[in-house]
């Protein structure tokens, strides 16, 4: 099995424990969409190129994540509701190191 466990808090505050594959080149935004935890059209609007911030999430666990690139930094500098632990879900790939990751979706 190449799945990992991820905990996602949706925008309504509900908590979902989901399995995410590590071998499908998916990212956090895509996992949210694949489990339909946010309505289509409210997440991943730009398709996942760090151009819209609709997949902004707050990372609640202490996993070491790949550093945000220039495009992600720039988008987060313009987005609203940004916190210290804000990241764009589309820029974080699912890898086995993320086992147990916990994050919540930022408001729309």
């Amino acid at each position, binding site marked *: 099995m190449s799945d990992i466990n991820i905990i996602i808090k949706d925008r309504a505050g509900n908590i979902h424990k989901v399995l995410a594959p590590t071998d499908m080149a998916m990212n956090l935004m895509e996992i949210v969409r694949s489990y339909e935890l946010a309505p289509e*059209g409210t997440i991943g609007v*730009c398709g996942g190129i760090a151009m819209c911030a609709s997949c902004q999430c707050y990372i609640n666990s202490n996993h070491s994540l790949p550093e945000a690139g220039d495009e992600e930094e720039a988008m987060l*500098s313009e987005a609203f509701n940004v916190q210290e632990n804000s990241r764009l879900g589309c820029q974080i790939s699912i890898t086995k190191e993320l086992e147990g990751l916990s994050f919540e979706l930022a408001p729309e």
Partner: protein
Amino acid sequence: MIKTDIIIIGAGPTGLFAVFEAGLLKLKCHLIDALPQAGGQCSEIYPKKPIYDIPGFPEILAGDLTRNLLEQCKQFEPGFTLGERAENITKDKNGIFTVITNKGTQHQAPVVAIAGGLGSFEPRKPMLENINFYEGKGVEYIIKDPEIYRDKRIVIAGGGDSALDWSIFLANIAKEVTLIHRRNEFRGALDSLEKVRELHKKNKITIITPAEITKLKGKEKIESLTVTKDKIETEIDIDHFIPLFGLSPKLGPIGNWDLEIEKNAIKVNTFDYQTSVPGVFAIGDINTYPGKLKLILCGFHEATLMCQSAYKIINPGKKHVFRYTTVSGVDGFDGTRKEAKKPVIQAINE
């Protein structure tokens, strides 16, 4: 009043290809788009990004795809209403639709094809309590007429290209230009950054970073705003506040057109991509049906099938058969004709 055969709402790739397919059936199209240029997301969000899944193009930049689609449909002379958002739709007793934009432009046709992609691109508004009150009273999200800022005190907020470019442009028109950004770093073209730096040195642009605008004040129109930097609040007297935080797509008024909506998209049948309202079709990213994929190539397919039904609505009872362009050529409305070269039949050894 603009009259045409098919009103296409949205001038992205799907809408542009629909013009071509309609043209093959001698149907004329008029496109409406909220953005000032054709191309939709391809030209607004990612013109310089490559697309790898357009059949026949191993790699093509989104901007180039738009240019090619415009070139491909040019011979069918589409009309354009750009920079206006389709606001309202009505149907008269003869089955003719009238689509009115937010600027009052009226369009009439027996068929409407909504190719609106993600919706219309609207400016992203900063979360300030009373900002709606000041819209049109000193707060503008889009600069239409720079002259209104002549000799005025302007605050621009944002850290991207449009904030930089407009700061540069207005530095020579306005009395004062203040640029406020939440971070120290701006993101933009190198020469824009350098120009802003230069204008800042000459005291033509005041830059306040990292800072946020936290309050707006004014009785009938905006008179001042509060900037918070390092937890210290400063009030600045202004005439105009221009927040430039980019655009985000919204389904917008189409959501109120009495069409069946599911998952923020318009429900269609997969026979001809007609919506719950006969004569109104939805094609491309804006529609949904079982198995839907939001892909440009699927939009092309949907546009092609939609045109066949549009023909039947526009020309009831009139016969036509589906033909290959290679066989029949393409007759443009502009008088041009494209066709395969005919072989010459001649004896060589006489």
